[in-house]
């Protein structure tokens, strides 16, 4: 398929661009395979380059022969284009519509993007699991790297290399994988050097209604406990939801079979509930009627801040277990690819000073989101303006970033990066020239040969010139555990987004 077929009108003159808080710009509109470009064709004036993949929804309306296209972007921007001529307008609108909903990943911009900068360090190799493992292998010999998932045969959403207890062999891992949702057997997520406690994550156990058990699974997670110690299992679903999951073959760890573990349920919402929350939030933010009353009730109705509070509370609880109680924890929800990752990664932000540096945070995203198989492709397919609600779209990653921002606001001097860094990550997760956030897991990324065919976001970000934009001038390394407040008074809305 050629892009040219989809572009009915490549160029229109005298188009007027309206953006909130900017003066209107008149210029020439061009459509390319991946971009919508508006240039005023004068020197020193900025041009608008918009990736088609950033477009969430478009509306068109006509007043006489003047057509107006309103483009709503995934990064919540709304821009308006006034196009003279009805036919041009219709052509442009249908071209944009087609180009922004390409269904083949290999037609996306990252596969065509050629970097204009010199690659100093290839981001695809910046954060290798082996290197990450070395960081704590000096402190403990109880863990090992396992290559059991080399061909993605054991668990399709796991990376080829995972960290597991040394005493458990690959054969046992294969058995455990059959007992966990999606083959996601418990793996190491974080090792707390201070006291040797760990965070593990997994999918739900497939106990079903008749209470199946798996000796290897019990052995695996018990292997992480020191003699006489107890651990905690944090289930990110409410007890009710977890019980219902049994009917579908899922379930939770029975206390009788895991006597050394105590289970805590911390309900975190998922999927379309989050998506609806985002839709309502953005709608409230865009409401132009200046009515204070309605704003607060709309904010409340969106429940966005409630979700933030739930996630942060669960993460604080996890960090508390590790650092204060000196107990290891296992975190899972249903699949272990969404709320589980929010909790494990936020707990690390709280516990581990390294994850509050730029490189450490990048490593965290690489490890806990990309490698861990958060389905970015599915979750970030649409944003707040889209009406076609798919079950798998959800702003899980955005919520995580918002939580990080909340902690950053409370500890403004403890982070090496600033708000812009978080916003940049959000934008690239939804639409990017880089291949980093394409695909749903490592297996898909391998099949797409992303490493060979696209650029890594990290290659671009980690250039000194770019990094300066994202550095927090107030940063002073804080080697301590930071304990954020979760009271509603402490959690404002993130205006940057």
């Amino acid at each position, binding site marked *: 398929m050629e892009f040219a077929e989809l572009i009915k009108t490549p160029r229109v003159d005298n188009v007027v661009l309206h953006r909130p*808080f900017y003066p209107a710009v008149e210029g020439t509109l061009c459509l390319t395979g991946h971009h919508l470009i508006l240039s005023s064709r004068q020197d020193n004036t900025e041009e608008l380059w918009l990736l088609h993949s950033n477009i969430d929804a478009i509306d068109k309306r006509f007043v006489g022969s003047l057509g107006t296209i309103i483009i709503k972007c995934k990064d919540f921007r709304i821009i308006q284009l006034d196009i003279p001529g009805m036919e041009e307008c219709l052509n442009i609108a249908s071209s944009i519509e087609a180009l922004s909903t390409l269904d083949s990943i290999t037609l996306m911009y990252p596969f065509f993007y050629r970097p204009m900068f010199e690659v100093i360090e290839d981001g695809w190799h910046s954060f290798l699991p082996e290197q990450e493992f070395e960081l704590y292998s000096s402190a403990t010999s109880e863990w090992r790297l396992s290559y059991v998932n080399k061909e993605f045969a054991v668990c399709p959403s796991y990376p080829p290399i995972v960290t597991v207890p040394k005493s458990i062999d690959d054969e046992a891992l294969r058995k455990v994988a059959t007992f966990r949702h999606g083959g996601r057997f418990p793996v190491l997520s974080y090792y707390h050097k201070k006291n040797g406690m760990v965070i593990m994550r997994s999918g739900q156990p497939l106990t079903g209604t008749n209470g199946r058990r798996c000796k290897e699974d019990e052995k695996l997670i018990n292997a992480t406990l020191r003699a006489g110690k*107890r651990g905690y299992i944090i289930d990110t679903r409410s007890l009710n939801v977890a019980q219902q999951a049994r009917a579908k073959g899922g379930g939770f760890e029975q206390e009788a079979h895991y006597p050394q573990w105590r289970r805590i349920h911390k309900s975190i919402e998922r999927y379309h509930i989050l998506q609806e929350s985002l839709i309502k939030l953005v709608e409230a*933010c865009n409401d132009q009627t200046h009515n*204070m009353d309605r704003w607060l*009730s709309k904010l409340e109705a969106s429940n966005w801040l*409630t979700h933030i509070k739930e996630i942060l509370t*669960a993460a604080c609880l996890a960090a508390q277990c590790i650092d204060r109680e000196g107990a290891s924890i296992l975190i899972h929800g249903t699949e272990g690819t969404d709320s589980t990752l929010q909790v494990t990664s936020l707990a690390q932000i709280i516990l581990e000073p390294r994850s509050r540096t730029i490189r450490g945070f990048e490593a965290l995203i690489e490890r806990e989101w990309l490698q861990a198989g958060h389905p970015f492709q599915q979750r970030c397919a649409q944003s707040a303006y889209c009406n076609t609600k798919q079950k798998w779209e959800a702003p899980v990653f955005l919520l995580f970033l918002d939580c990080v921002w909340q902690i950053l606001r409370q500890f403004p*001097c403890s982070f090496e990066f600033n708000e812009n860094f978080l916003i940049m990550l959000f934008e690239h997760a939804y639409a990017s020239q880089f291949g980093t956030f394409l695909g749903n897991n490592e297996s898909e990324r391998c099949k797409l040969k992303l490493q060979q065919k696209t650029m890594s976001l990290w290659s671009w970000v980690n250039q000194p010139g770019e990094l300066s934009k994202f550095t927090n001038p107030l940063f002073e390394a804080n080697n301590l555990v930071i304990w954020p407040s979760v*009271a509603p*008074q402490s959690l404002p809305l993130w205006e940057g987004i």
Partner: protein
Amino acid sequence: MEHIRTPKVENVRLVDRVSPKKAALGTLYLTATHVIFVENSPDTRKETWILHSQISTIEKQATTATGCPLLIRCKNFQIIQLIIPQERDCHDVYISLIRLARPVKYEELYCFSFNPMLDKEEREQGWVLIDLSEEYKRMGLPNHHWQLSDVNRDYRVCDSYPTELYVPKSATAHIIVGSSKFRSRRRFPVLSYYYKDNHASICRSSQPLSGFSARCLEDEQMLQAIRKANPGSDFVYVVDTRPKLNAMANRAAGKGYENEDNYSNIKFQFIGIENIHVMRNSLQKMLEVCELKSPSMSDFLWGLENSGWLRHIKAIMDAGIFIAKAVSEEGASVLVHCSDGWDRTAQVCSVASLLLDPHYRTLKGFMVLIEKDWISFGHKFNHRYGNLDGDPKEISPVIDQFIECVWQLMEQFPCAFEFNERFLIHIQHHIYSCQFGNFLCNSQKERRELKIQERTYSLWAHLWKNRADYLNPLFRADHSQTQGTLHLPTAPCNFMYKFWSGMYNRFEKGMQPRQSVTDYLMAVKEETQQLEEELEALEERLEKIQKVQLNCTKVKSKQSEPSKHSGFSTSDNSIANTPQDYSGNTKSFPSRSPSQGDEDSALILTQDNLKSSDPDLSANSDQESGVEDLSCRSPSGGEHAPSEDSGKDRDSDEAVFLTA
């Protein structure tokens, strides 16, 4: 002293608001001016001081097995819960405090006994620090349109106005007196702010006594005079800050608003700001929300919205923005009034002035603004903030709202204000504390009669002395955005107005950001300054050494080359040594506490604050302070191994997270 039934109670527990299971055991003292709680724990001996004048309400709750709880709510939004073992003691404390918190004579207030160890001269200097006649001169007055009128000499015309008043030159004494008879409480139109750039002005008054049909020629002439004083515009805005319904209701009582048919060339405008009773209830509702123990997000947002507080803040801001625009963009003069012209009018005039004039956004300028629009124009501080026992219906957070408006603006324009949040909070504190004489009484006349300036000290001098603590490190006087009028975005978004937890939850330390950017930047700034001084000193020294060297070489150069060389090397050494001395300085530096060296200071809201201000600055304390808020377990709790018992404990300990 005769009101104190029991000066000392032992074994009292001070309950921690965030984690009620944790309570500090100590001794409670009642003094003539303060309630003091001293912790028993020998290593801390933490002290909490509360001024009697800060006490808003005292509530004796039902006796429990542990003792008799006493809840003290303060006007600065601190909440103290004490548990007193003996019912009888509790009753005595309760009765004493009820009396102590409601003084009936001005002489009982703290400012008459407060002595900051300043001599008479220093005190007098303190009172002249803020000089309103200087301020009018700064505005460019008097000029050929405006003059100083002595019509209110000895408060003959209006007893709630000051003696120094600026009126249009064409307004004769006859017009003024005539107009004053047609205005509520004789508060006739006078100048509040003069905008030099285009001669437009903001004037203020009370409502006219128009009833349904009454009119007054002199009052109409007065408004004409205001219009003529601004040759650039052919009309005057008359802004009534009340909701239209309220203004119409006033007509039935013989008051009301200007009839556009009677006054030539006016544009009349209502701006619906609610009255003091609505505001009082709104604050009450919001504080109830703040007091909730571990509320859910919806509880909080719903409660906040239901209180209407932010809506009222927005209404005041909108009025200020309207006036600032009329003055700066349309070049029109504005007359502002409400009912009596001392609450909403003061709020709106001062917000508009703050938007228009960068001077009011400096430390001293802000003091001048409060002195002018609030103190001198007879805002009834005594009634509104309940300094003396009075009618509870008169109490209302009028100036609190103005201070919050300033904070909201500071959030929008972080570089436009010379002062920081702490400055606002301390001003709010002292409006209620009665430690300084500035905010006593209801008018200038009363203050003169009471000889306030001879008997008490001025807050402004005190704040000025400690101004280093109140500076905003981000302030840029030369930035294009901060010069002239502040321009808010044309379509103000609703999320512009935020809940100010720094004010209303300021005593719940756990909820505040743990690291202060302001303090950090101030520290960096100070450090830079020290380094620069150091550099200067070193350069001077280097110059001297080189001079000496030069002399030496002149003498010695022909004798031997090597000696010259060694001479230089010594000077090198001395330079290399100095930075090491310095590193000692820098080390001690980041832990500088904002209120250190401030022993006599009134700024120390409580002793507790003085001590805990240190941790705020240094990141090291995060661990302690943070953990205490998250878990209620005793400090040793974190260490013990999770045995069966500790598993049980967890339930209660984690209450904060689990129930949330």
